[in-house]
């Protein structure tokens, strides 16, 4: 169907321009900076003082969408780290009698009963009498007001396993409740669970990409530099992985490991499975780069000095692929985030009561009635969308900024 990609064998006579996929235009950071024509006139003052990274950064800063993505991601990841502090409740605090309470974001009052301005407060919650009113639901209990208090005590939490505390950014005194984004079937606070869920859903992206980049760099680097049998075997493995329908493959791998796993185990399993699929793309890209890099003089110099092959690959060739690797990594983070969402949504990922954006959404799938009457349970989906969009903006901007051909 397709010819084997660059079946170069072990000969080193491959001309540098012969590498497929147009990757040859990005030989290394150094040449990117020196050769890149045209646009240099504009950034000339920068040019000598700056490292290649500086140049990329200054280009990136001009890209509004990319910077927006960067700020959104910084905020989301910061919130994920301090989730315990920002969330008013823990992810498993249940209030069974108040399941599916609507969002209170619009029910924070600043005028009290007599019309005077007061410190922001919420009313108590009362379950309506379904027989008298003809519907099931909640209403505000105007006899009880609960002012929103800052830095109040609540559920215990820890930040990065180190800082342990029970002081929350905001909250109300018991028995009052504050459900900013509503509550789920068991009366757990959706806002708190989204924050705790972001710890899992967002970190899967970073951890996953780190693992598959490590595998991809090693295998791709070796395949590109050594060529021959190593190249042949690893590239055929890559093709097999890319030919399989990925989500099915992921599901099968997941099912092979049974279902009675602890939450840490299933988290690790998801990350490993996703990286097991993800390394293939990275390895292929890196191999293409290494094929052109190994023709450079400094590699010849290293060979002449008698360095071992492993050392040449790891210390001399791979570092030069780094800028490109970072771009590819940023572009492929959404794959891991969406992979976790898909697995958890189908019920084979992160298990209850642990929160992840995927398994929170699976509540909506249980019954169309839930979806219709309690639409706020879709809130985690909005966050997935925002996070993936931000990664896409950033990845796109980085790719433009690191590409010497882009003169915009």
């Amino acid at each position: 169907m397709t010819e084997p990609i660059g079946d170069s064998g072990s000969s080193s006579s491959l001309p540098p321009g012969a590498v497929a996929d147009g990757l040859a235009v990005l030989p290394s950071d150094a040449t990117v900076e020196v050769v890149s024509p045209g646009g240099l006139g504009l950034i000339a003052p920068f040019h000598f003082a700056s490292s290649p990274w500086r140049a990329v950064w200054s280009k990136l800063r001009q890209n509004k969408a990319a910077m927006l993505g960067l700020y959104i991601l910084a905020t989301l990841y910061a919130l994920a780290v301090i989730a315990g502090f920002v969330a008013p409740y823990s992810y498993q605090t249940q209030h069974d009698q108040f399941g599916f309470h609507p969002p209170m974001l619009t029910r924070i009052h600043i005028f009290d009963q007599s019309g005077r301005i007061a410190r922001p407060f919420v009313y108590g919650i009362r379950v309506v009498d379904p027989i008298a009113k003809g519907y099931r639901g909640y209403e505000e209990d105007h006899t009880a007001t609960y002012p929103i208090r800052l830095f109040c005590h609540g559920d215990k939490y820890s930040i990065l396993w180190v800082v342990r505390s029970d002081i929350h950014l905001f909250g109300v005194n018991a028995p009052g409740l504050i459900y900013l984004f509503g509550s789920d079937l068991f009366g757990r606070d959706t806002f708190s669970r989204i924050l705790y869920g972001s710890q899992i859903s967002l970190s899967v992206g970073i951890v996953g990409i780190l693992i598959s980049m490590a595998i991809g760099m090693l295998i791709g680097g070796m395949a590109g530099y050594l060529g021959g049998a190593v190249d042949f075997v690893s590239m055929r493995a890559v093709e097999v992985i890319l030919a399989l329908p990925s989500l099915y493959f992921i599901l099968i791998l997941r099912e092979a490991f049974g279902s009675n796993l602890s939450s840490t185990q299933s988290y690790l399993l998801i990350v490993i499975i996703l990286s097991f699929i993800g390394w293939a793309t990275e390895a292929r890209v890196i191999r293409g780069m290494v094929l052109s890099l190994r023709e450079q003089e400094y590699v010849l110099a290293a060979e002449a000095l008698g360095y071992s092959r492993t050392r040449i690959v790891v210390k001399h060739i791979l570092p030069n692929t780094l800028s490109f690797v970072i771009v590819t990594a940023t572009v492929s983070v959404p794959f891991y985030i969406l992979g976790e969402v898909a697995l958890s949504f189908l019920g084979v990922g992160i298990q209850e009561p642990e929160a992840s954006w995927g398994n929170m959404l699976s509540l909506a799938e249980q019954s169309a009635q839930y979806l219709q009457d309690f639409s706020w349970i879709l809130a985690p989906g909005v966050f997935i969308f925002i996070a993936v969009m931000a990664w896409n903006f950033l990845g796109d901007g980085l790719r433009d900024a690191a590409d010497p051909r882009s003169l915009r």
Partner: protein
Amino acid sequence: MLSPYNYLTTLKESKGMTPQALDVLEHQFHLESHNVFTRYGYWLWQGLHGNLGFSFKYNVPVASLIWERVFNTLLLTGTALVISWGIAIPLGSLAAVKRDTWIDRIVGFVSFFGLSMPIVFLSLVMLLVAAKTGWFPLGQIHDEVNWDRFTALQKVSDTLWHLFLPAIAMGVISMGQYMRQMRGEMIETLSQDYIRTARAKGLSEWRIVFRHAVGNAINPLISLFGISLAYLLAGAVLTETIFSWPGMGQLTFQALQDKDEPLVMASVVLLTLMLVAGSVVSDLLLAFIDPRIRLEGR
């Protein structure tokens, strides 16, 4: 850590199964060997002879279960493919022609929207739309109650009505990438010399774009066709689950949970074959459309 359970584990725990009956089943399903490779060898040998085995759960040949599902899945993914390419190619070309105007910006936003929208979320939103408005059915492939009484025409329109939302959801997800690709290719094509020649000849802009540019810009996208089919088939699991669409994704996921191994194996083999076929077809199409590729081998 590998899951030690197989299909018979649940049966063994249930009452009403005699050890003899279990034994018969064990032999029938070839589960007596705990060596995965032996069982795989047996499966492969049978599979090469066209026998994909019996489903543990339904106790009928796997092939008979799968065919109907294959059609349903292809109907869904095929429609989604038509929708995504049908939107992506005109809009991508338009964005390239109207480069750096507000139209370009809107198209850019739409493609980012498609790229970033998780299929799970969009499908749920579509389902929410169906539930709130009542204009569309809540899943399933056709009307279960009246299906047998429908005329042929009613059957077609009923299926299309059920198809609409899931196909739109899947189409929107996959269109973003092609839209951007098309825009890029089109911008490149419009800067070529022959376009300048066509302008110099005094051809109308309309004719230049459609007759000279689009045809050339579309070539690189055709090789993406196979990949786009792969994405759609893989993504179909989620949409099919949400819309209770009786396709292969739903069947395979259910079979995985039931540990119905022959069914899982058969459907994954079939899906992989479909993917490979998709990329063969796109290679052939490319050769058919682009004479440079067709003539290179001569």
